[in-house]
């Protein structure tokens, strides 16, 4: 049963709204501005699901994912990214390739995310 989520995004408003929306849905939500912070938080209070952006300062999403995979193999991972389909900067297919539990392209409907979390 998923109770605790960790939202990682470099955009403060994005973190905030997601936290608000997910808390409304009954989850306990921690937020981090980058991968490093996320790891530190996870060590203090492990989350069941990591919801992370890819474009981020300090450590990009992929590095964060790698670190989580090693240290917290049980934690499920959902990737959200604003990468465009027509550009090289589309990281979602890459994320799918490395086998995360879910991918979402920004902007997404919070209900879609909630559905995804329910399935996990």
């Amino acid at each position, binding site marked *: 049963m998923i109770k605790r989520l960790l939202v990682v995004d470099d*955009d403060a408003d*994005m973190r*905030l*709204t997601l936290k*608000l929306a997910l808390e409304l849905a009954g989850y306990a939500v921690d937020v981090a501005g980058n991968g490093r912070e996320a790891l530190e938080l996870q060590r203090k209070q492990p989350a069941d699901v990591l919801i992370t952006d890819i*474009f981020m300062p300090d450590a990009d999403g992929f590095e964060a994912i790698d670190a989580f995979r090693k240290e917290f193999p049980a934690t499920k991972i959902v990737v959200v990214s604003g990468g465009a389909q027509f*550009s090289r*900067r589309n990281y979602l297919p890459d994320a799918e390739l490395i086998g995360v539990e879910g991918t979402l*392209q920004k902007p997404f409907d919070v209900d879609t995310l909630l559905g995804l979390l329910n399935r996990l």
Partner: protein
Amino acid sequence: MKLRSHLYLLVAGALAPVVFFAVASAALLVQQERRAMEREAIGRARAAMSAVDAALAGHVTTLKALAASKSLAAGDLRAFHDESQRVLATQPDWLNIGLATSARRQLLDALLPYGQPASFGGHDGSFDLALSTRQPVIGGVSVGGAIGVEVVRVLVPVVQQGEVRYVLSAPLRVDALGEVLQAQKTPRDWVIGLVDRELKIIVRIPSVAPGTPASESYRAAVTQSPEGWFRGSTLEGREIYAPYVTSPLSGWSLGIAIPVATVNQGAWRTFALTATGVALALAMALALAWFIGRRIEEPIASLAKATHAIGRGERLAVPSAAPMDEIARLAQTLQKSVDAMREREDRLRLALDAGRMGSWEWDVRTNRLAWAPELEAIHGLAPGSFQGTLEAYAERIHPDDRVYVRAAMTAADCDEQYLEYRIVRPDSATRWLESRGKLVRDPSGKPQRVVGVCMDITERKRSEEALKETSRAKDEFLAMLSHELRNPLAALSAAAHVLKLAQPNEVPAVKARAVVERQTKHMARLVGDLLDISRLAMGKVALERERFNLAEAVSNVVNVWRSSGRLERHKVSATTTPAWVDADRARIDQVLSNLLDNAVKFTPAGKRISVAVEQQDDWAVLRVSDEGEGLPPESAERMFDLFVQGERGLDRAAGGLGVGLALVKRLTEMHGGTVSASSTGRGRGATFTIRLPAVLAPAARAPQPEDGPVVPPRRVLIVEDNDDARQMLHEVLAYNGHDVREARDGASGLALAAQSTPDIALIDIGLPDIDGYEVARRLRASPGGRRMGLVAITGYGQAEDQRRAYEAGFDAHLTKPVATERLKQVMAGLQ
């Protein structure tokens, strides 16, 4: 064959018949001379013979006279003896006088006393001859008398009563005849000789013993013919020519021997003369041929030299003076061709220069490489300093491209070369070159040389690179755009979700509304930047210039940023001294905002950002310096290009579209200003400098309110079909104390205006029924409409829209989303 050889041949051809005729006539002359000489020599022999004959005839006559003496006829021998003695005494050449009977009995001897018997001596065949012919006879040479002197006898038969009774004889000393020969005065090296019937020499100069047989050749000649000319040898063995004659009187012969050398001397002289003449003629002809040849060859040689030099590319004048018209013409023609060639060459050189091209030639056999001066210039070498070897060439090539160039050059079956490679100039600048070459083969197909041109394509390469970079930047931009637009949308979407579920007055809803407000502004700025940059690119932005103090404007912007909290993470300082400009204030604010945004983005928290304004000469200078990441020097210039941002990885914190600095540049340039970026290196921060033309400060300054204009409460009418926009405007205006009415379309707007007569009407242009322009026109035409303040609100804000708005009667123009500050300014302006 050389020209001179041709001339020599001509001379030889012309002279050959002349020589032939000269030699032939010389031969003829020699022959005639020889004949004349022969005749003369024979004449001379005859004369000598005549002298001998005359001498003999004298002796015969004297003896005949004695024979006719009376005493002999009377038979008185004693008296005759006396008479003979007397005669003998008168004849010194006679040795004796003798008288013999026909029966060979000696009767008398003048040297002996009368009566003393004398001997008959020395009578050879000549005695019988005298008897038979009854004519005087001259005998051969013999040794006569007791004294042993060589003599010839003169015999005279004495005929009495029809019979020969006696023969009278006188021995004559041959010396006497020698004197006759002597008198002929023949040259010393000649021989003259008298020979008797028996071909014995009687007398000879130079002398031999009388009675010596004549030379064999002489005897042969005389036996063959009594008179003539022969070639033979003397007794001494000398080679001679000899004329000879025979006397009918004595039957003797006389010969003169002339040395062959003397005879041939004339011939030799003639031949020598002819030869000299021929040789002289030949020499003169040859000399003339040589001289003329030289006169032709020299100008030709100098023309050839000039042509050669011109071929080598030296600027030599063709020698024009020539001794021969044809050569002068040749020189003129050559000069014309050279001039034409030079013109073409100059044109080619110009073209090569213009294209930064230079020609080269590589001799495959000698491996020499010749470069035109332009090519040396392209390589950054002084003219003539290239050594012409492949090694020297390879040295100039960029180390990474050497193997490639070498391989391409030596590709065996490559008739056309095309190379693109880099070189490193002595000043260590790297340039891109393009080289095209064509292989020239000899008739047998063997490679001889490769000729080609080389061109500096650095600029092209750079623009290609820049194009690639631009294209890459565009891709980046689109990706970034997608990301930058999707991110706020994602936040908005999540906020909408929260607002849908949360109680309006609870914390989550309040927070979500704040997020909506922030993200909307953020997106509006992004879209605004994008639209601005495209409008600027199309030249559709009109500046609304006014005179203001840049220092104040900058301070205001910094204060607004400060109060909004956007500068709280950095130490920001502003140092300003007055600098007045004539500019569009809103645009200048935009410029500074973008610079500040840029500085904040790229400067780590806690570091310093400083803003400065000052006047430098004719420029108002705005500087924004930070202690951020700095710029690589090579990209300082490009920072202002569209879509370019500082280097960023996946982990970039900056965000933004990369259009901010491009906007800064275009807006500044529209104001006649310049932008520049500088950095002392990575991590050492950057300084962006804007220079705007400075203007004089106005004499009296209107007092400026501190916190923007204060607008007294007005009746305001909003005509806007978009509910959100209308409500937003309504709230802002109501908040500021205005009396606000609103309408959703043009018709109701006009009705409301007629009813409430507002002070100001804010009218959207894109209305569902009649457009905003029409609304404005009708309002202006309505009672009291003239004094009404009309403000157009459009989504475009292009220069064309502004113009149409003013034409329709609007006083001002605002673009969506309407900024509160701007709205205040506009409304203040309408007081």
